[in-house]
């Protein structure tokens, strides 16, 4: 399209009353379907005149990021009706958790949102600790923050890589997965597992970090900002990427709040809401970091917010490893936490408690609690009901993917079906978390 024919004042221009600057950025891209106007193509996009064509996207489609089925009604290439259908990987995790003792629930909840396992663990362990009124040692809190932020970078890398892949940029996928593997190597070093690490324990973390871990983390932190600059250089000057993200999928801040959307999607729309800054579930107040926000809430803002969140997370990881306090990495409450291995040979009481903790599990006093934390997709909240036994009565995960998915309709209706793929990728849903 020749840009000179699309300047303000021209009869073909979408909105003659506002300049591109007022519309936010260069509103002369592929935005006909979303900007109300008068040119023929815009009329096609806005007026309902032809019959609708119904198609199913998914559940088995690589661009749906899991087993998501979208029932789409198209008028030509314009999306008119969109209904997400979920539940294809529902495995009843919440119900299964009710039959497990608390410490056995931890690996279960990890498998809900399978890219943010540390966040699922933190939400569950935090809720249990709140019911037990158990304080975790400072070193444990620092180790948790360190792993949570590494997990956030990991999750954003997968999101960014697959998003770029959906928009046709396959090299981004490999670069992002290269750095992701480095993070998985770090997880393997500290916990023995690359994914689903079960590293957090009620009361702290399972083990201290091994010798040499700090150096590896520092090397990663030194490397990562440059890598992020390289991603930005690859995408920010890519004409195709810009045309397919700028002014696409715009949803206003008010509508996002009404739909309960949290996380990078909400921040991209201009709402600086981050639980790390306002809540005290972990001592984030002792760390220096910023909350990146967007301006108009299009796909480009979402990409930029995630990119800058990675930079901030690298800063947090650096501070966490530099300022890691000395001391125990798990609480000293023998009624909840396993006794140290070396005590089992010399202390009868330690042996008894070890046996009871492993076979029956610890008991949690009756009560109920809602424990929200800030994950890479928004608010992960565990609602936990305890009845005094060693098994929870109800474990509910308020998963951000599930709630955020409701905003997909607002992003897509009135836009092109090709932009639906971009919107879905930028929404970054994890179907394991949606279906649980």
């Amino acid at each position: 399209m020749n840009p000179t024919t699309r300047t303000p004042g021209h009869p073909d221009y979408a909105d003659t009353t506002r300049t591109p600057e007022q519309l936010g950025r260069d509103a002369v891209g592929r935005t006909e379907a979303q900007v109300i106007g008068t040119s023929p193509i815009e009329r096609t996009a806005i007026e309902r005149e032809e019959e609708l064509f119904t198609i199913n996207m998914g559940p088995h489609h690589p661009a749906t990021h899991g087993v998501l089925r979208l029932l789409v009604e198209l008028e030509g290439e314009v999306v008119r009706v969109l209904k997400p259908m979920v539940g294809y990987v529902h495995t009843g995790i919440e119900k299964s958790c009710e039959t497990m003792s608390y410490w056995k629930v931890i690996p279960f909840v990890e498998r809900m949102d399978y890219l943010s396992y540390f966040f699922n663990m933190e939400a569950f362990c935090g809720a249990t600790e709140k019911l037990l009124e158990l304080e975790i040692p400072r070193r444990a809190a620092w180790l948790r923050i360190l792993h949570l932020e590494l997990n956030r970078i990991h999750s954003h890398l997968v999101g960014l890589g697959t998003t770029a892949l959906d928009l046709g940029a396959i090299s981004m996928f490999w670069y992002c997965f290269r750095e992701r593997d480095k993070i998985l190597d770090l997880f393997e070093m500290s916990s023995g597992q690359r994914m689903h690490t079960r590293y957090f324990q009620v009361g702290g973390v399972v083990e201290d970090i091994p010798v040499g871990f700090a150096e590896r983390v520092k090397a990663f932190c030194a490397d990562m900002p440059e890598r992020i600059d390289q991603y930005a250089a690859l995408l920010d000057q890519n004409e195709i990427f810009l045309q397919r993200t700028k002014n696409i999928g715009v949803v206003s801040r008010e509508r996002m709040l009404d739909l309960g959307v949290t996380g990078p999607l909400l921040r991209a729309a201009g709402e600086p809401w981050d639980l790390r800054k306002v809540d005290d579930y972990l001592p984030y107040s002792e760390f220096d970091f910023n909350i990146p926000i967007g301006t108009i809430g299009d796909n480009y803002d979402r990409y930029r917010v995630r990119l800058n969140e990675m930079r901030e997370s690298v800063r947090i990881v650096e501070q966490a490893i530099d300022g890691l306090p000395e001391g125990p990495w798990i609480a000293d409450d023998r009624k909840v936490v396993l006794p140290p291995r070396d005590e089992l040979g010399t202390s009868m009481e330690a042996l008894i408690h070890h046996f009871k903790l492993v076979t029956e599990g610890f008991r949690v006093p009756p009560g109920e609690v809602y424990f929200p934390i800030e994950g890479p997709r928004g608010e992960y909240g565990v609602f936990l009901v305890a009845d005094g036994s060693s098994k929870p009565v109800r474990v509910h995960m308020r998963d951000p993917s599930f709630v955020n998915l409701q905003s997909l309709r607002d992003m897509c209706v009135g836009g092109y079906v090709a932009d639906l793929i971009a919107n879905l990728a930028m929404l970054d849903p994890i179907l394991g978390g949606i279906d649980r």
Partner: protein
Amino acid sequence: MPDAPGLELIAHEINERHEGAVVGTSYEHEQAALLADPDSIREVLAYLKDAPGHEYRFLASLHGADYLPAEPRFAVHYELLNMPRVERLRVKALLPDPGDGTLPELDSVTGLFATADFQEREVYDFFGIVFRGHPDPRRILMPEDYVGFPQRRDFPVGGDPVIFTNTEDSVPGWTK
């Protein structure tokens, strides 16, 4: 979080406007909860959302719970959030089981909070609580023809009948 006396003031204020709308309060682990009468849940939430001085405009989460054997048995929890003040308030609607297979009913709040759409469907799916006035009252995660509400406490784990290969002849009515 409103503290315990603040919670009593909110309860009193709502009861002045809607007689008997709040039937109790609870305050545990620094989390405040209002126990609402299920018949006036919409009035309570609308008041908390819009009244000056409250303005809990964000519904962070909506979930169900089954407190069997306690009575009333079911509960629907609304986790409200006031973002500027960073205050959370839980509203709990306690619902008795009507018995003889009838499902308990509650007003839908999708008109107040658009986010309640999927989450109310999830509560219906797993607990069998019907939301009156919901725009799309179907199951969401379980198959549409599924019988039963699996998150109820009296729903058995692993109780689904399974037809085993090679012995399917023993199933009554089975034909090859």
